[in-house]
């Protein structure tokens, strides 16, 4: 066997399976699926060991390990492993008309609590100071937090996206007064929109103990395999966080699942602009690749009933998958889903000897796929099968059309086990690509991730000038990217968005700039 060196391992910890792949350069050497274990760690060990064994790789040759996980999302939604949070908002006398937690489901108060501290400070949209930060006020709040025994602290200052200095100063004081506390600052997480950003900050703080356990668990798992390579965790926007960074910002992993699958699809097909359709057993997720990264949602998203506005991919989910139930109404019309037999497909579907008609049965009956026993669906009328296939394709085409941003046909990449449902060209698609290894696109997406930096704040074009403002924003984003571990030579601006603010004079424009780059370590080896 050829010597396998300079390798990366990508792991995707899903609800059912833990996928692992081993990459060398840009090619996937080995890919495997293993069941996700209760303790996560042993499943990761098993999966990573399996790919290393199959590739004949040694622990010392592994340069990086990248992990994609939905554990933090699930923990928050299920309200498990959360710790009480002290919420400090720097905004008085402003914003008292909506206190923190106003719109949170009551169930969170048992775990996260309702410990709210409003203090003076904050900035205006143009950076002017609303009121100065009162340090003695922060010290007094810190003393109360110590009395409550709370160790997770969320700090949000008004317009901290414009000027983060008050948030940072408050963070220093609290850290000094509350040794060992885990502090989350809102400016490092969210965007403009106080309530949504504060919510994200609280969510993040509530996970601060659990994230230590999880990252520690990953590290222990790797140690068992004698791997001491740097560990990265993939985040919502398709870039990587270092082990240390994820320990501080677990919420940034919340939507990394669909993101990894889209990034994996991009890598498998070398397409930078495409629509990605990920068809699973129950749902189909449709997203858009723009410059190789998922297009982001511009509207707030609810997670576990809490509204936030941090970076999330813009995904349309429809109730269509391999296990979707097929029914015929009285008027002869065919419906598909949204209910599904899910993981019971291999028991309940007709072709596997079950008694439920599923989308998979239709594909087998039509002769597009060999799965189970085709004889068991031979009784389905040809016309019925054809109409059910039309319906399935209609649903996918409609979802694709909704996600497109122009009338022009776009390339479509199909991934996920349910891809067999597509048996013909799709309207609106210039081509339909089903890549090799489409089943482990998630793990590949994690393994190929780059590091990123972003800036999102308001500039005055009247004062700064448009060109200078964009230059400044790019510089800030590039610096953030280098801080995250990128090699300076590889920086690339992937997104510049200008949003003029209505009703404000002086050419106030909200600028969002995103920069990505290759990991420094990846190039040095």
């Amino acid at each position: 066997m050829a010597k396998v060196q300079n390798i990366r391992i990508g792991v995707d910890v899903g609800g059912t399976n833990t996928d692992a792949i081993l990459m060398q350069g840009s090619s996937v050497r080995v890919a495997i699926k293993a069941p996700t274990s209760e303790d996560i760690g042993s499943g990761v060990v098993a999966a990573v060991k399996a790919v290393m064994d199959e590739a004949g790789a040694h622990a010392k040759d592994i340069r990086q390990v990248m992990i994609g996980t939905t554990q933090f999302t699930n923990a928050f939604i299920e309200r498990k492993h959360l710790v009480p949070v002290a919420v400090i908002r720097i905004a008085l006398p402003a914003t008292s008309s909506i206190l923190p937690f106003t719109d949170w489901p009551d169930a969170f108060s048992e775990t996260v609590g309702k410990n709210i501290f409003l203090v003076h400070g904050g900035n205006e949209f143009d950076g002017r100071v609303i009121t100065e930060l009162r340090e003695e006020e922060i010290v007094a709040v810190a003393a109360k937090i110590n009395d409550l025994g709370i160790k997770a602290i969320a700090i949000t200052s008004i317009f901290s996206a414009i000027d983060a200095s008050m948030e940072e100063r408050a963070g220093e004081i609290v850290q000094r007064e509350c040794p060992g506390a885990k502090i989350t600052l809102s400016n490092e997480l969210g965007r403009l929109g106080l309530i949504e950003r504060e919510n994200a900050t609280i969510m993040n703080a509530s996970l601060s103990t659990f994230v230590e356990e999880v990252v520690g668990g990953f590290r222990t798992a790797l140690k068992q395999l004698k791997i001491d390579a740097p560990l990265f965790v993939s985040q919502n926007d398709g870039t990587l966080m270092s082990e240390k960074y994820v320990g501080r910002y677990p919420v940034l992993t919340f939507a990394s699942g669909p993101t990894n699958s889209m990034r994996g699809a991009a890598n498998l097909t070398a397409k930078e602009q495409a629509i990605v359709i990920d068809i699973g057993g129950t749902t189909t997720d449709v997203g858009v690749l723009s410059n190789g990264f998922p297009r982001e949602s511009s509207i707030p998203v609810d997670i576990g009933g809490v509204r936030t506005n941090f970076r999330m991919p813009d995904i349309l989910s429809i109730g269509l998958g391999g296990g979707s139930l097929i029914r015929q109404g009285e008027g002869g019309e065919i419906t598909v889903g949204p209910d599904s037999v899910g993981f019971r497909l291999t028991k309940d579907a007709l072709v596997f000897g079950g008694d439920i008609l599923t989308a998979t049965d239709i594909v087998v009956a039509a002769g597009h796929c060999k799965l189970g026993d085709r004889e068991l669906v031979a009784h389905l009328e040809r016309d019925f099968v054809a109409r059910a296939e039309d319906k399935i394709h209609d649903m996918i085409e409609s979802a694709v059309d909704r996600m497109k941003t122009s009338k022009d046909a776009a390339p479509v990449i199909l991934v996920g086990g349910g891809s067999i449902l597509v048996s013909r060209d799709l309207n609106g698609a210039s081509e339909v690509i089903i890549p090799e290894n489409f089943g482990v696109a998630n793990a590949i997406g994690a393994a190929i991730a780059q590091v990123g930096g972003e800036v999102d704040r308001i500039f005055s074009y009247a004062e700064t000038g448009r060109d200078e403002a964009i230059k400044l924003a790019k510089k800030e984003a590039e610096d953030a990217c280098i801080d995250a571990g990128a090699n300076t030579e590889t920086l690339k601006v992937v997104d510049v968005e200008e949003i003029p603010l209505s009703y404000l004079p002086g050419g106030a424009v909200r600028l969002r700039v995103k920069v990505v780059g290759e990991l420094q370590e990846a190039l040095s080896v």
Partner: protein
Amino acid sequence: MQIDLANLEDFIRGSAFLGTGGGGDPYVGMLMLKQVLNDGMQVTLIDPADFDDEKTAINILTMGAPTVINEKIPSGPANVRALRAAEKELGYAVDAIMPVEAGGINASIPLVVGALTGLPVIDADGMGRAFPELQMTTYNVAGLSSNPNVMADDKDSVALITTVKNIDAERFCRDICVRMGGIGQMACYPLTGKQIKDHAVLNTITLAVEIGQSIRIAREDHDDVVSALLRFLESEHVGRVAKVLFDGKVTDLLRETKGGFSIGRVILDSLAGDGAQLEVVFQNEYLTALKDSTPVAMVPDLICIVDRETSEPITTENLKYGQRVKVVGVSVPEIMRSPQALATFGPAGFGLDVDYRPIELLGA
């Protein structure tokens, strides 16, 4: 009618519908109301018919940029200070407060102030929907002054503006608003009970609640939500002309900011496969709808773009290529259609070169 936690979401959805694409994020208004209601405060609504002619009320609002409103939350207490300063200037205490606009976040703000002060809120407004500027009111059309125009910020600053023309009040207040941090809490347009009955658009808070209710109930009953909404608007009780102007999907979207407004147009292609197109022009709110270049509805009649399945109102910022929507047109009360009204907030008020024709006379 009361506004309480039970009908709050109906009210917010209805005020978003009446926002006709603009009016600011009603979510912020909902949270402000939720907070005062959770604290046990109450909002008392009064039917204008039950408000004595000699009694007085003043209009309450937030002026500001939507982006700022989402970060520097409107302040209920500052709004109370603006109200008190206006009373001092007037030399009397008002008996009630009221909204200046029925659509968007400003439908909620007076209710918050009503809860904080215990003052009743009159179920009527000066726009019957959302408009972008302070002079675009039925009160202004009737020749009533907006003086005193009082604006307060979070830091106890209070500005008093007295002008001869209401349109100048809009200009001056906008500048002060920016100095105050892009948002200011206002009291203006003091009115008597008689003036309200004669010159306000009546029962619009109730209308917002009922619009939200009809959408919610139709969803719960798995009815066709848009049809149910139209039936409600055309019922004898409401008495509007309401119709689906178009059923289509967004195929093109142009948006730019000019003079502080979000201006643009959205093109929809018919889902019926007949090749028809609808163009909706907006300036913060949806202003005109043209089907194959022929007008089918124009401001001040309401043009609302809603999700074709759920009837959820869609604001201009949330329009996206590919959305499946229905465009609904709704007539406005006669008080909003007089020649003076049309000069103030009809097509001419927005600088559009088209003669107003009521929605019931236009084909769709």
